[in-house]
C-alpha cells in the first residue's frame, strides 16, 4: 500500500580506512517518520548524511552502494540536486547569523541564485513559518536577526528553511539534543504535522523520542542495521537480542 521513497542498497560508508556504515539495506515509506537510533559511534549519523550526500564533504570520506530516491540513485545525481530534494536539519540550530529571520527562511533560494518576486517570497516565508508553528511568534519581527530567537525557535527556523525548498524528504540529525524539554516537545509535535507533506528520517539518541514520534524505527549497532520494523513492534517485541538489550538499557 505504502510506496517507498528512499531505499538504500548495500550502502557502505568510510572515513579513510574506517568502515563506519556496513551494508545497509533499508526501505523508507513515503509520509512516514522513521527514527534511527543506536549507541554513539554506531554510524547512524553517517548513514543519514549519506542520504543527501553530505557525508562526502568531509575530507577522506567515501561511500559505496546505492541510495535510491524514488528509484533514482542519488549517488549518480549531482549532490546539489540531491540536497534540493532532501533537506536537512542539524543537531545544533544553525540559522545564518548575518541574515534576518525572513532571509533565513528563503536562504536556500538566495544561495542558489533563484530570483523570486516579492509576493512569492512573502508567501514562501509565511507558508514555511506556519508549517513549523513559528509564524505567530515571529511575524512582527521578520527583519530581526535569526540569532535573536531562542534555541527552540532557531531550530524551528532551521526546519522552516529546509521546508521552504519544498523537499521530498527531511533529514534530522539529533534535532532536539541541544534543546530544552519544552522546545523539544514543540519540535516533536511538528513531526506529526510535517509527515503529512514530507517523509522524515530522524536520528536520535533518545529512545523515548523514537518511540513517541516515529512510525518505524531502525536500530544501528557497530555500523550495521540490526533491526528495522514498526516502532511498536521494535519497542515491545524486538526480534534481535541486541535491540532488546539496547532498549532495556543493558548497554548504551
Amino acid at each position: 500500500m505504502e510506496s517507498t521513497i528512499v531505499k538504500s542498497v548495500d550502502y557502505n560508508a568510510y572515513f579513510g580506512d574506517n568502515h563506519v556504515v556496513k551494508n545497509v539495506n533499508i526501505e523508507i515509506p513515503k509520509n512516514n517518520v522513521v527514527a534511527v537510533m543506536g549507541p554513539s559511534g554506531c554510524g547512524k549519523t553517517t548513514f543519514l548524511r549519506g542520504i543527501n550526500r553530505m557525508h562526502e564533504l568531509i575530507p577522506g570520506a567515501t561511500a559505496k552502494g546505492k541510495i535510491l530516491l524514488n528509484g533514482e540513485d542519488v549517488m549518480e545525481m549531482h549532490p546539489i540536486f540531491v540536497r534540493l530534494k532532501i533537506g536537512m536539519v542539524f543537531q545544533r540550530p544553525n540559522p545564518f547569523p548575518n541574515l534576518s529571520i525572513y532571509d533565513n527562511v528563503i536562504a536556500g533560494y538566495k544561495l542558489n541564485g533563484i530570483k523570486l518576486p516579492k509576493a512569492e517570497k512573502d508567501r514562501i516565508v509565511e507558508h514555511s513559518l506556519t508549517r513549523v508553528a513559528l509564524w505567530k511568534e515571529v511575524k512582527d519581527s521578520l527583519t530581526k536577526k535569526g540569532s535573536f530567537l531562542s534555541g527552540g525557535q532557531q531550530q524551528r527556523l532551521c526546519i522552516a528553511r529546509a521546508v521552504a525548498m519544498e523537499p521530498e524528504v527531511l533529514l534530522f540529525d539529533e534535532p532536539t539534543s541541544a534543546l530544552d524539554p519544552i522546545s523539544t516537545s514543540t519540535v516533536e509535535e511538528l513531526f506529526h504535522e510535517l509527515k503529512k507533506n514530507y517523509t522524515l528520517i530522524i536520528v536520535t539518541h533518545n529512545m523515548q523520542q523514537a518511540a513517541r514520534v516515529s512510525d518505524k524505527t531502525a536500530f544501528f549497532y557497530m555500523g550495521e542495521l540490526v533491526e528495522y520494523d514498526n516502532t511498536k513492534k521494535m519497542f515491545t517485541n524486538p526480534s534481535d537480542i541486541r535491540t532488546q538489550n539496547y532498549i532495556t538499557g543493558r548497554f548504551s
Partner: protein
Amino acid sequence: METLVDNDLIARPDESLGRAFSAPKPKDAAKASKRIKRSHRQIRTETFFRRSLIIVGLLMVALVFAIMLTLIVESIPSIKALGAGYLWGKTWDPVKDVYGALPFLMGTLLTSFLALLISVPFSFAVAIVLGEYYPQGWLSNLLKNMVELIAAVPSVIYGFWGLAVLVPIVRTFETSLGVPPMGYGIFSSSLILAIMIIPYAASLGRSMIQMVPANLKEAAYSLGATRWEVIRSVILPYTKSGLFAGVLLSLGRALGETMAVTMVIGNTTLMPNGIFSTGNTMASVIANELGEADKVVYNSALVELGLVLFLVTVVINMIGKKVIGKFTNE
C-alpha cells in the same frame, strides 16, 4: 613570603643543591629543612623571573613612547618655521628653504593604495584556497610557507629584483601605452609593494576563514549551495571584518615600506601627475635626504615627515587590531 627566605641560602644556592643530592642519607629532619629551604629559593626565583618579565615588557612600551617623543621634539623647529602649510605645500626645495610635504604624501598614498588594489585579489585568493579548499596537505603547506616567506625576504632584495626585472617590463609596458617610458615610478613601486604585502592579508584571511563554524557551511550545503555559493554567501559575509583587518595591516606595511620603494620610485621631488610618473614617498625621501640635510629646518622637516608617517601607520594598525579584536570576540 620573602621574609621567610633564608638569605644565607641565596648567597650559596649551588652548594645547598649539591648537598641535597650528594649527601649520604642525612637525618630526616635535616632533609626536610633542606627541602623547605629549596622551596623558598624557588619562590624567590619565581618572583625575580616575574619581575624581570614585567620590566622587559614596560621597556617596550617606554621605547615606543621614546621614539614618538624623539620625533616630536626633533620636528619642533620645522613645525615652528613652517606651520601647518607644510602638509599641503607642493614644493620641496631645500636649497631655497621651501618645504612642502604634499608630493610625498601623495606619493605614499598613491603607491600604497595602488599596491593594495593589486594585492587584494591575490591575498584573498590565497586565503580562500588555504582556508577553505585545501586546509591540509603538502601542496597547501608549500603554498602557505612560500607566501609567508614573501614577508621574510629582505626588502632590499625586492628593490634589487624590481630594478633588474620589473622596471624594464614596466618600461616596455609604458612604451606600448605611449607614456614617457621611464620604468621607474609610482607604478613600479606599487607592483613591488603589492607583492610584499600579499602575506599580511593572506595569512590573516586564512585563519579567519578557517574559523567559520562548520555548521554554518553545512547549513548552506544542505540547502543545495555550491562551493562558490558557500564562499560568497556564508564565508565572505562572516569573515568580512577579518578580511578588512588584513587589508588594513597590509596597508600599514605598504605605507611604511622604504628600501624597495626608494630603489624603484625614481626619487623626484615633484608632485606626481599620474601612476606612471616618478615620485617619492615619505619614507623614501627620508632615506634619501636625511644624510645630506645640513640645515636645522631641513633636517627637522624630514623628521616631521617621519612623524606623520608614524602617526598614520599607528592609527591604521590600531584600527586593524580593533577590527580583529571585534571579530574574534563575536
